């Protein structure tokens, strides 16, 4: 039913990798014993006061610049008031109508705003049955409370679950390149909520949106958004309205459950934080942030495309995962390789497939120079593609130099006049005269078994293209 167009906006929370918390000098915690990183400020003790972490501002401005935002000349913290055990002051210090950054764009998605705030503490439920009224207890650990957070809100520019997932990957790569956060969804340093609505295709108006909270993996985000789109579609098709609500998606069962309805919408009673003076983005602060920016994924992709001639798709594939692009460029630069950039780029996916899509190639046993060497061997037709894949497996297993491996194991390509390839081709034709005749009479599809025979005889060391050429030549085509 493609009469409906999904409209998706994302709200992302990023934990910054500063040394200390947003408003106090407690160190950030990584799986430590509970409540060992607290102080009067982050415990919300009477009389304690917040003081802004300069590094968090620096990182916030870097993020804003990387996302093409306007950095507010003056911004203000506000109190967001509500009661919950993980919120020690009974308010969160956040930003409201004067955020650090506004506007911006990353890829196809416009950024609405970027602002700074403090993270809540962690609430651990110790009861057996979950959330039963009065029967169970929870325990609060304030280690996490006060961790600096950057909140990024996009415009509703995404139109499919897949697009949303891809964009989040791009955002993650960008933030990782900045070095401002671990951006690890499984650890909670990157958290994503999605606002989802649908509307008749071509309509300019927005439908009622629902909010999906806290999806902690790219797959989870994709599946949750997809499920919600389908749910809304089904509702509208049945003539029922979409109700504005907050939902939780269970990735295991695939079900969506309401968390709270509109009637319980919060009144946060925002007002300017009197304990914190305004922030002014000085020229020095802006310059320092600008200087700290590395080449960002989108720019890198563009460069790979224009300077090296990679396809737009391949360039994005590499640039949108910093580790891949770094590895690729290291391989390209490795001494004496003089390898073809496009050919090299095409072999990166082969490597990734073998080491796992989450692994960093720099952590594998395949040195960048080795991959470059391997690709060069193929380009020079000194080994076949099949052989190259075998050698790659060996490199992954135990490292080493590709040329040495080929030498040592006699994996050189069977190719050229002195190689005996012509005899093997002749033998293939003789072994399968039916196929040979079909090819001779123009049915190119029948060439498969003939090539296959040769490849088997040469243990994959022949180049498929050369074999096909020889077959056709021997058949007089």
């Amino acid at each position, binding site marked *: 039913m493609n009469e409906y167009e999904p409209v998706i906006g994302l709200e992302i929370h990023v934990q910054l990798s500063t040394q200390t918390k947003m408003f106090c000098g407690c160190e950030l915690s990584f799986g430590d014993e509970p409540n060992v990183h607290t102080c009067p400020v982050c415990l919300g003790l009477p009389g304690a006061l917040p003081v802004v972490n*300069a590094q968090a501002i620096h990182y916030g401005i870097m993020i804003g610049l990387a996302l093409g935002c306007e950095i507010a000349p003056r911004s203000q913290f506000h109190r967001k008031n509500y009661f919950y055990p993980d919120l020690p002051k009974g308010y969160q210090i956040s930003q409201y109508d004067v955020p650090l950054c506004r506007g911006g764009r990353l890829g196809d998605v416009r950024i609405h705003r970027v602002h700074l705030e403090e993270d809540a503490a962690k609430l651990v439920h110790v009861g057996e049955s979950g959330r039963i009224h009065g029967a169970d207890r929870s325990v609060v650990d304030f280690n996490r409370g006060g961790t600096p957070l950057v909140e990024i809100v996009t415009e509703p520019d995404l139109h499919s679950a897949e697009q949303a997932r891809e964009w989040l990957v791009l955002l993650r790569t960008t933030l990782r390149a900045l070095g401002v956060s671990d951006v690890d969804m499984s650890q909670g340093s990157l958290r994503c909520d999605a606002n989802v609505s649908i509307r008749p295709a071509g309509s300019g108006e927005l439908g009622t949106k629902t909010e999906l909270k806290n999806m902690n993996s790219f797959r989870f985000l994709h599946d949750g958004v997809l499920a919600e789109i389908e749910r809304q579609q089904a509702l509208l098709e049945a003539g029922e309205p979409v109700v504005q609500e907050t939902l939780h998606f269970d990735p295991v069962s695939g079900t969506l459950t309401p968390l709270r309805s509109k009637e319980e919408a919060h009144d946060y009673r925002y007002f300017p934080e009197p304990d914190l003076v305004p922030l002014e983005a000085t020229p020095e602060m802006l310059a320092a942030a600008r200087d700290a920016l590395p080449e960002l994924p989108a720019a890198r992709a563009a460069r790979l495309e224009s300077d090296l001639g990679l396809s737009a798709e391949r360039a994005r594939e590499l640039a949108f995962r910093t580790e891949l692009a770094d590895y690729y460029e290291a391989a390209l630069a490795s001494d004496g390789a003089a390898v073809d950039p496009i050919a090299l780029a095409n072999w990166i996916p082969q490597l990734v497939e073998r080491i796992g899509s989450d692994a960093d190639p720099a952590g594998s046993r395949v040195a960048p120079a080795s991959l470059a060497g391997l690709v060069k061997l193929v380009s020079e037709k000194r080994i076949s593609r099949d052989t190259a894949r075998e050698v790659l497996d060996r490199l992954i297993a135990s490292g080493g130099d590709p040329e040495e491996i080929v030498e040592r194991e006699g994996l050189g390509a069977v190719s050229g006049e002195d190689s005996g390839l012509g005899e093997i081709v002749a033998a293939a034709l003789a072994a399968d005269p039916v196929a040979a005749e079909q090819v001779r009479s123009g049915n190119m599809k029948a060439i498969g078994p003939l090539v296959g025979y040769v490849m088997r005889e040469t243990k994959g060391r022949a180049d498929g293209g050369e074999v096909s050429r020889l077959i056709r030549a021997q058949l007089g085509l």
Partner: protein
Amino acid sequence: MLEREQVQHVARLARLELSEEELVRMAGELSKVLDHIEKIRELDLDDVEPTAHVIDVVNALRADRPEPSLPREVALAAAPEPVAGGFGVPTPGASAEAQ
């Protein structure tokens, strides 16, 4: 004039349990105060900027350097329900406010 329902709503926001008697009394007292305060709304303040801070200071920032945290037993010293190294509380229900 503040209605009883409004007062109840505000009490809920403020997490204050008020008895019926208190609700009624509070409605009267607050109404009286608000009637007096209402007069400021007659002022012409259209072109006036609000003052959130009386001092003219910006960028009071601190360096990202660790300072000693409280020892855990000190942090928990006043806890009404210290448990498992943390602060015990009733488990929030689905209707409790949350982020």
